[in-house]
């Protein structure tokens, strides 16, 4: 759990992306992919995760409250196993995310990355950039009134 290999860093990145992706966007992209033969190792299950914060942003941890999470594990007939922990209570979201995770560990990885992960990451970062741009427009430019001392 300490040293993160490149491989696990890569997997962390796509699992994180799948967890945060809007379920509808993922479902739409997934429709273009052939669903591989698989069975559910762990059927989708809805649960909670206690979110923690730090006192004063940097200090000791405290419990902030829970969030809903759905998890699922699948095994493809080729033997690849996929896991998913996704935000919210959408079971299809969790199954699809686990299938994508499993496929990313097969020789279909490049095709799945191009069909699902790349467009998903692009739409999420576009949405984030749009929000950041709106925030930037509300940044205050201070100016000092000329004082009439002369």
């Amino acid at each position, binding site marked *: *759990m300490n040293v*993160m290999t490149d491989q*696990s860093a890569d*997997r*962390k990145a796509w*699992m*994180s992306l799948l*967890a*945060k992706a809007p379920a509808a966007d993922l479902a739409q992209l997934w429709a273009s992919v052939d669903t591989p033969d698989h069975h559910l190792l762990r059927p989708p*299950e*809805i*649960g*909670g*995760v*206690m*979110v*923690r*914060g*730090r*006192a*004063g*942003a*940097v*200090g*000791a*941890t*405290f*419990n*902030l*409250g*829970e*969030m*809903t*999470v759905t*998890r699922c*594990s699948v095994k493809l007939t080729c033997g690849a196993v996929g*896991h998913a*922990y*996704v*935000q*919210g*209570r959408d079971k299809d979201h969790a199954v699809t995310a686990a299938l994508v995770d499993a496929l990313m560990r097969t020789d279909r990885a490049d095709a799945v990355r191009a069909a699902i992960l790349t467009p998903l990451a692009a739409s999420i970062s576009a949405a*984030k*950039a*749009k*929000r*950041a*741009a*709106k*925030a*930037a*427009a*509300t*940044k*205050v430019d*201070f100016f000092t009134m000329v004082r009439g001392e002369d």
Partner: protein
Amino acid sequence: MYVAVKGGEAAIDNAHAWLAEERRGDPGTAELSVAQIREQLALAVNRVMAEGSLYDADLAALAIKQARGDLIEAIFLIRAYRTTLPRFGGSKPVETDKMACDRRVSATFKDAPGGQVLGPTFDYTHRLLDFKLMADGAVPDATHADALAQDTPHIMGFLDREDLIQPEPAGDDTPPDLTRTPLELPADRALRLQSLTRADEGFILGMAYSTQRGYARNHAFVAELRIGTVAVEMDIPELGFAIEIGEITLTECETVNQFKGSKTEPPQFTRGYGLVFGMTERKAISMALVDRALRWKELGEDDLGAPAQDEEFVLYHADNIQATGFLEHIKLPHYVDFQSELELIRKLRREAQSTHEAAE
């Protein structure tokens, strides 16, 4: 005395059927969808998530619809649902210094690095009713500008570097959880913060206001208020590493308060902290003020006898579900209790009357 303990089933069923009809309102008016509530009553949804202690905007919107807009009833529904969820684990502490800020203001430094970013705020509006909202109409697009690429630094970091603010001792121990173990006093800061973040906004606001008016005087500056999204990361046992399991909106408030110092230690500013689910600015500022007031013991201050310093008073009365449960139960049948009181008062009156007559 015999008191019926059964009955009313038909009345209850009929009451609930009528409730459903009243909830729907005039069928000639379009029905609200959960998505409409989630998108257009977002601040109500945020409050229900914060006080319901469960981050799920769809569920909070559903609860608001079911509760006919009664937010405490909606919070009650969310709290009840929350208890049915298996707990998958605890997240790593969220990193608010990496927040994608919608809003970030500092009342202490005008030229704070990262700037004063107002975000979608009610501040500076004139609080005049906008009758245009009564008519349907498109909203003009918000203006865009070039955004800074880097993270927005915390203001406190600058004071910390100069040693001007009391340091915040880091710790990674698993914090106590009042949803698993009943809240006992004295409560450490982690427990107080958990209690405050899910506490009733009105109660915490009132407590915070009392400190501003002079009860446990603690003049607070809002060093920083930020609202935005952060990723939530959790270790996944079957993987052996952590992944992000979602993204949530948080409001964080850090206050700078007056000094603490002694003969041996030079004076330093002290801190109050508020962190709340959603866009919940009033609550986060209130939380920071109450957090600071409750820290009097650890900061070596005097007990001024102010309500906001009394952790038993604050923590035991801040939860609106506990409070409403006990408060509202008194409207439910107490026929037997009251019959015994009636018997007693009649007996006392009879005795008083006979003593009075005997005296005459």
